[in-house]
Structure formats: structure tokens, C-alpha cells
């Protein structure tokens, strides 16, 4: 029994079987990578985990509780945070405010009226937000409009927003896509330290094999909606089927 157990999940879009009998178990405090060709169903699987999509059949258990049928915010409150493939941030708010919102969500739950206190009075939370911004090297952009950040920075911001919630399970959908190589390396380091420092489980989708092989404890290869193989990284690298379907010359 892992922290996350996906059993026999199926999802169809019209005539397309996007997910077929997916079984997946993510062990606590591990980094589990999901790789696979474009259109394999990776993002769809993630969508089923966070309540954006409801699978046609199958079950998804998180820490012993089913997530199916729950609203996205309930699932997040259970301890799952997600970084999207195309950055989802609060574009009209400042970088700093973007960091405060997940903090409030963490502290106050899904809804709480704080209509009279000022945001600026929340000293403790502000400190936390600034610390996190510093960690992702964005403290100098604190007051910028998040919408006007460059794409790499938006990604980083989104990741910081998820991390600051200290989720039990962090879902990352191509977190380093479009990031400069140097920053990709920094991100790898960041995720590594976080993993070591905190008790956190990660599920990561990436096409950048450098990232995958530096971080993952286990890798599931998904192709056409079904898991092809699941194994430790070393074995995946050499796997002929994976090479053919996915890795090409990169391996």
C-alpha cells in the first residue's frame, strides 16, 4: 500500500481510450516519475487524481481515502498539490500575493472570512512566503505582477506556491519545461533538498530525462493510456521497448 494507489482506472474521451486499466502505486516519501510519449495520458491521469476529471471506472486512494467524487479543493486540503503543464497562477496579483494565498488555504481551510484584518498584519505568513520566494530565487520579483513574468519564472512561481503548502503529495506536470538549463539544475537541487528535508512524496511528469533520472526513485512508462513498464531508473534506461516508444537516441 502506497501513499497513492490507483487501481484499474479507465477514462475515455469519445472514441479515444485515454487511460486503460491504469494501476499505479506511489510509495510514501518517494519520487515517482511518469514518462511516456506525447498524448500517452499522463496529464489525464493527473487530472483524475486532483478531481479535474472523473475516471469512468477504477479507484484512486490517497492515504487510505478515496479521492473520487471530491471537489478539487477538498483533494488539495487532503494534501495533494499540483503544478500544471501550462502555468496556472494568479496573473492579476503580485508575486507575493500569489504566495500568500496557498498559505491562507493551508492555515484556514477552504473558506474563512478574514474581512477586517489586513494582509500586512500576517507577519508569520509573510515571513514564510518570503523565505520560500528566496528559496526559488524570486525575492527580488516580490512586487511584480505575476502575469508579466517570463514563462520560466511563472513555472517557478507555481512550483513555489505548491511547495509552500507542504503537501503530502506533490504532482508536477513538466515542472522544468521551458526553464533555462541552469535553472533546471537549480530546480532539481531544490526538489532534492525539499525531498530530503521534508516528508514529501512527489509524482513527476517530465520529458527531460536529465531531470527524471536525477530525481526519480521509480519510473512508470505510460503509452497509449496503459502502463508499459514500471521499474527503477537504471532498468528503464536500457529497456528496449521504452527506447523505441519514447526515448529514441536520448538514452
Amino acid at each position: 500500500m502506497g501513499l497513492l494507489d490507483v487501481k484499474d482506472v479507465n477514462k475515455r474521451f469519445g472514441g479515444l481510450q485515454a487511460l486503460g486499466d491504469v494501476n499505479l502505486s506511489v510509495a510514501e516519501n518517494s519520487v515517482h516519475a511518469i514518462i511516456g510519449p506525447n498524448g500517452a495520458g499522463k496529464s489525464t491521469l493527473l487530472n483524475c487524481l486532483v478531481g479535474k476529471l472523473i475516471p469512468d471506472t477504477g479507484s484512486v486512494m490517497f492515504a487510505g481515502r478515496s479521492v473520487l467524487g471530491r471537489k478539487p479543493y477538498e483533494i488539495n486540503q487532503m494534501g495533494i498539490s499540483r503544478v500544471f503543464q501550462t502555468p496556472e497562477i494568479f496573473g492579476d496579483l503580485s508575486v507575493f500575493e500569489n504566495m500568500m494565498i496557498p498559505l491562507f488555504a493551508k492555515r484556514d481551510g477552504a473558506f474563512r472570512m478574514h474581512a477586517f484584518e489586513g494582509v500586512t498584519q500576517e507577519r508569520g505568513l509573510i515571513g514564510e512566503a518570503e523565505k520560500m520566494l528566496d528559496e526559488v530565487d524570486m525575492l527580488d520579483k516580490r512586487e511584480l505582477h505575476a502575469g508579466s513574468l517570463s514563462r520560466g519564472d511563472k513555472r517557478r512561481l507555481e512550483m513555489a506556491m505548491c511547495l509552500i503548502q507542504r503537501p503530502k503529495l506533490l504532482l508536477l506536470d513538466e515542472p522544468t519545461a521551458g526553464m533555462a538549463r541552469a535553472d533546471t539544475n537549480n530546480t532539481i537541487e531544490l526538489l532534492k533538498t525539499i525531498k530530503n528535508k521534508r516528508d514529501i512524496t512527489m509524482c513527476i511528469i517530465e520529458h527531460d530525462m536529465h531531470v527524471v533520472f536525477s530525481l526519480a526513485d521509480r519510473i512508470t512508462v505510460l503509452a497509449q493510456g496503459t502502463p508499459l513498464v514500471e521499474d527503477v531508473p537504471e532498468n528503464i534506461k536500457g529497456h528496449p521497448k521504452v527506447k523505441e516508444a519514447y526515448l529514441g537516441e536520448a538514452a
Partner: protein
Amino acid sequence: MLGLGKKDLGLLAAVAALTLLAPFLLNPFPSDSSLAQFNAGYPDLMQRFVIFGIFAIGFNILFGLTGYLSFGHAAFLGVGSYAAVWMFKLLTMNVIPAIILSVIVAGLFALLIGFISLRRSGIYFAILTLAFAQMSFALAYSVLTPITNGETGLQIALDDPRILGVSATADGSIPVTHLFGLEMRATEILNLGPWQFQFSAGYYLCAAIMLAAFYLSIRIFRSPFGMMLRAVKSNQQRLYYTGLNARPYTLAAFVISGMYAGLAGGLLASMDPLAGAERMQWTASGEVVLMTILGGAGTLIGPVLGAGFIKYFENIFSKLNDNVLHGWFAFLPDGLENAVVAIIHPFVGKGWHLTLGLMFMLVVIFLPGGLVEGGQRIGRLFRRKRGSEERAAQQTPAE
């Protein structure tokens, strides 16, 4: 102080000063001069300025922060008015219970409509609110006449039961609204040379309440709640995946702004105890939308400015007739006088709508951020003049 930052405190102080001094500021012209027509410092209009200011401030909490455009907000103002007048009819002419009841009733009504309408967003939400308000209006005008007195509007009559008061005064008149004995229509007149200034009890009550409402709205804007509302506007998707439920936030904002509207309605009735069904018509809902955008949606002071602007046109420009025009231009030779009057004629009096329409267009074309932006531009102009020139030259590229 007051839990506000320096800038907000300054704004609040400025607004307080302006409202307190309004009787002077709005009456800049001597009362016998030909420009006296432009004076707006009489109780009815001053009350309207601040009451519609309250209405617009409340609307802005919903629209400015969450971006949910309600096209039926006048319904809450309407039910607030009805509630207040019924309070006058049944309980007492004291305005306090009436105002309290109007806020509560409007809040409940908003809770009901908001709960249903907020299931949709964007234009679908706007049309849902519009539909509810139009329904309220149509019913108030016809089948609900026993409650609303239909077309005429709910009025106070000589035979009202009024439990904590008299049905009629000793001399057979209808009693007037008051605040613990202070009559709302009581007005002190100060004559200073040719100038005349009116200090109305009703106005100062409204102004005080408006300041409180404004203060509250600043607090909401600066609070975590306000930030959540802006987040709703920015990206609801992200909000949900961050573990927050947008629905109660928007519903709370909706109810709060409905209560502001109810407060405005209650005050309108307290100043002039009549509640007309037209208060709930879509044009009235549209008006508060226009006030907010015209002033600057999402800004603190904008909606108040917008409210003042529209009410000024409605009340001052509609009263300029040819007779007045001839009065102004009497100094010109006859032919010229007639020509000038003929040119201005279509824009005033019965043409006041034309001027209002043109003003809407000019403001939104040239001041995309509303009147507030106009103010900022003027402010910047002054600052730039003072500031060193080379910096200005460096900053904005010339095109």
C-alpha cells in the same frame, strides 16, 4: 491608525473632509448669480451623492474585486427601500430600525439570489441576476401591489398603524422620519453674503454612514478576504487547486454588496419615505454598473466619483432650460445670444441624456481607468512638472 496604511488613511481623511465640507464645496456660486444653477449643495442632491456612493462602493466589492458583473443589483436597493418604508408604516418613524431592517432584508434576498446565480459565471451570471431583478420589478409593479403600492410606490399614509409612534401628528399631518427626534429634513441655512449654504441633518447622517461604509470597504480590500476575491477574478481554477472553495467567497461578497445596496435603499427611504418600483428596473441596475466603471472599477474611490458624476447630470443638467440659457447669455447681442442658446439647447434640459451619453463615451475612450485615472493623470502632470526633466524624458518612450 484604524488599522489602515498611510495611503488609505490619507484617502479616508480626504473623503471625510470632502463629505463634511460638501455643503460649501458644492455651492461655489452665489445663489443669485446666473451660475447658481450649477450649485449642487442642496440636501436632496447631497444625500443622493452619498447614498448612491454607498450603493456603488458595495457594488464595487463584488464587481471590482471578483469581476462578477451583477446586472440586477438594484433589486437589493429596492427591497431595502420597501423594508424601510414598511418599518416606518408599522413600527416607528425613527430611521435606525428601518435602516437595520433594510440591510437585513437585502442581505437575505441577496443570499437567495446569489446562491442560485453564482452557480454560473461571466455573462450567464449577469443574465441570471438581471432576470431576478426584472422579475422583482415586474412583480412589484403589478401583482405585488398590496405590498409595494405598484406604480406609485410605497408611501406613508395618514392611517398607518405605527406601533411605536403616532399615525398622524397633532395638526393632522403625516409624521416625518427622524433619528431619536432629530428630523431628517431639518436644515440649517447659513447665509454668507450672497452665498447660501444648507446643512441638512439627513445629509450628515448619510455622510457619516457613507464614511463608515467606505472605511469598511477599505478594510475589505486590504484583507485576506479581499485578496481571495481578487484571486477569484484572476484564476478560479488555480484557487480550487490551491484548496480554496471559491463559491462561499463569491457568495459572501455578493451578500455584502447586496447589504450595501440595501443600506443605500434604506437611507433613500429614510431621507424621502417613498419606495418606487423603478428603483429595481434594469436601468437602475445598469446605472450602478455605469457609476462603477465610470469612476474606475476596482478602485476605492472611483465608484463614489462615478455616482456623483451621474447624479449631478441627472439632477442639474436636466433642469437647465432655454430660459436659464437666455439668462446666462443675455449679455451677448441678441442674434448671437440666440445662436449660442440654439447650439447648447440640444444638450441640456430634455437633452440631458445626450450629454450624459457623450460623457460616458468620452470618459471611457480617453480615460480607460475611469475618472480615477483622470485624477491620476492630472496628479502625474503636476508631479512631472516638479520632477527633474531629464528623468521624465528618459522614462516613457516617445512614439
